[in-house]
């Protein structure tokens, strides 16, 4: 039998080869601020493990390169990703001189390229598996548990990222809860207001175009500007409305961020409610009316259940978007993971940027997977779902 190559495998193997051989695996810095020195796999790891990693990478790249069974490809990607995760911690311990608390070791471009290459292989395998919604959430849960285990075991404690975390452990969790509060709270507010508004827009023609146009324009205002613009009116409210300041309304800080996120969230919620309701089959509505349902009964019993998957899609868009946008809140003192990102950018401390960016991406990614699964389950057996 002739050897057959997998096209995606060629790309993966090429990236992996570059990442393993040419690009540095880790960066060593004498302290937090100075420029780093690159270290290859063999330099960064104790002898046996460096060679072992290269062997594993070679074998996995071969699995990717050739046409191999799906199970083998998945196993290879999981093995490589696990080894990389464990060994970057080993590199941290190996490269940090004994007792030196200033030295910093972080993952370098080679490591990230290898992660990228084999995540591609994993993603391709998972895509081809065509997992059920529950299956996808289960995979997510396993991945999250694995990362948690690595963090808890202290395997990564010698990495710069974790040192940045250790220095800020308290504020990290504060900002995390602030971030989630901002993203989720504004979503809840947007749903509470947007859903009735969407239903109203569906029923009242002349209202629809006006409301959607205004919300469309709100979306075009750049986020940092909207955050900033809200400082003035909220400051005025805090100063002039009795009790407003007591419940936390202030010109800077959480309040303008919350309001801005709320305003951005309205459009997807309202628009998807309108689209979802408009997509309800005419026949179903006619039948409901013919059987003597009142407007309210029709809304509750027919229209809303049929439009539900589309409305959920709007909620997914909002949640993912809000988790990202909440980072901007840091610029106006609103807190959230953005604090670390902008501090890091200011100090050119890459690992601090990562401390803010990685949890944000992980949160958004998890939210997307979970809500996608929920949407798929909600849409099951409902042909109107494709109206989204």
């Amino acid at each position, binding site marked *: 039998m002739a050897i057959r190559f*997998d*096209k*995606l495998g060629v790309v993966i193997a090429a990236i992996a080869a570059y990442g393993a051989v040419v690009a540095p695996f880790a960066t060593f810095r004498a302290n937090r601020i100075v420029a780093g020195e690159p270290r290859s796999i063999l330099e960064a790891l104790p002898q046996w493990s460096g060679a072992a990693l290269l062997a594993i990478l070679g074998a996995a790249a071969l699995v990717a390169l050739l046409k191999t069974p799906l199970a083998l490809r998945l196993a290879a990607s999981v093995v490589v990703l696990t080894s990389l995760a464990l060994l970057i911690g080993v590199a941290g311990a190996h490269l940090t001189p004994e007792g030196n608390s200033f030295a910093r070791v972080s993952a370098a*471009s080679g490591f990230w390229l290898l992660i990228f290459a084999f995540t*591609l292989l994993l*993603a*391709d395998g*998972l*895509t*081809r598996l065509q997992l059920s919604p529950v299956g996808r959430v289960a995979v997510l849960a396993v991945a999250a548990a694995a990362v948690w285990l690595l963090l808890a075991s202290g395997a990564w404690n010698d990495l710069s990222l974790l040192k940045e975390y250790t220095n800020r452990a308290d504020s990290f969790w504060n900002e995390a809860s602030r971030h989630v509060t901002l993203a989720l709270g504004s979503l809840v507010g947007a749903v509470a207001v947007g859903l009735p508004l969407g239903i109203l827009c569906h029923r009242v023609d002349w209202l629809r175009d006006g409301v959607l146009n205004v919300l*469309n*324009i709100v*979306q*075009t*205002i*750049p*986020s*940092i*500007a*909207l955050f*900033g*613009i809200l*400082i*003035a009116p909220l400051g005025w409210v805090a100063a002039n409305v009795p009790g407003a300041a007591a419940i936390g309304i202030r010109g800077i800080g959480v309040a303008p961020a919350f309001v801005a996120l709320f305003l951005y969230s309205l459009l997807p919620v309202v628009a998807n409610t309108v689209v979802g309701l408009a997509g309800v089959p005419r026949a179903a509505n006619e039948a409901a009316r013919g059987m003597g349902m009142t407007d309210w009964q029709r809304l509750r019993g027919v229209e809303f259940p049929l439009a539900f998957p589309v409305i959920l899609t709007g909620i997914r868009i909002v949640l*993912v978007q809000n*988790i*990202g*946008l909440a*980072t*901007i809140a840091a*610029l*106006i003192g609103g807190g959230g993971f*953005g604090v670390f*990102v*902008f501090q*890091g*950018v200011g100090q*050119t401390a*890459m690992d601090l*940027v*990562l401390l*803010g*960016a990685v949890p*944000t*991406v992980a949160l*958004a*990614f998890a*939210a*997307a997977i979970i809500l*996608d699964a929920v949407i798929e389950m909600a849409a099951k057996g409902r042909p109107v779902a494709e109206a989204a």
Partner: protein
Amino acid sequence: MRAWLPLFLRLCVLALLVAFLVSPQVFEPLLKPLTQNGAPAIYNQGSLLSLALQHLRTVAIATVAAIVVAVSLAILVTRPAGVEFLPLSRSLVNIGQTFPPVAVLALAVPAVGFGEKPTLIALFLYGLLPIFENALTGLTTTPANVVEAARGAGMTGWQRLLRVELPLSLPIILAGIRLSVVISLATATIGSTVAAKTLGEVIIAGLLSNNLAFVLQGGLIVAALAVLIYDALSALERMAARRMGQVSAE
């Protein structure tokens, strides 16, 4: 009266925008009440017009690059030779869109340093996704019987792509470009946190000096640009779609 009103409003917005960019001093009395302690009402650390032009330039470069790459990739994965990449590229687009623009921007800094470059990279990467997604949708949902008829008429693969599939996907690709441009216009302002010359500079200067007038003028200029460009691209899309008897993909 309903027909000309939107056009009239747009022309007003355009006229105001141009007037403000060319001679912002005229508008000073309007913005003065927003400032405190005699702070300047009009941005004074550079020309608004040149910042706006640089903002547009950055967005334009990133968008053109994103269009070329995204459409080529979409063509590649919808040809028989690239079809193996199709499912994966769909998942990648889904995953990619969960990355917040700020994170992309911040992560690009260590790779290329401060200034315009990380902004260009972030805008390019972030702009790729909607265009690629729409191009993919367009190219994979061309009506089967139309493609069948093209094959039956004896068109080669290239002829089908150039004469049938791409023209038919044009409205939906344009919709992706529109989305991408609007996101980029807003995201470019964040570029100023990494020292890119964009209108974000005005907003950030306002945030730092607690000068609401700066924040407002920076934000409104970007919003006006976005609304006008969004409208122009929508009109282009409707023109392309109307010829095919399709409803515009709004």
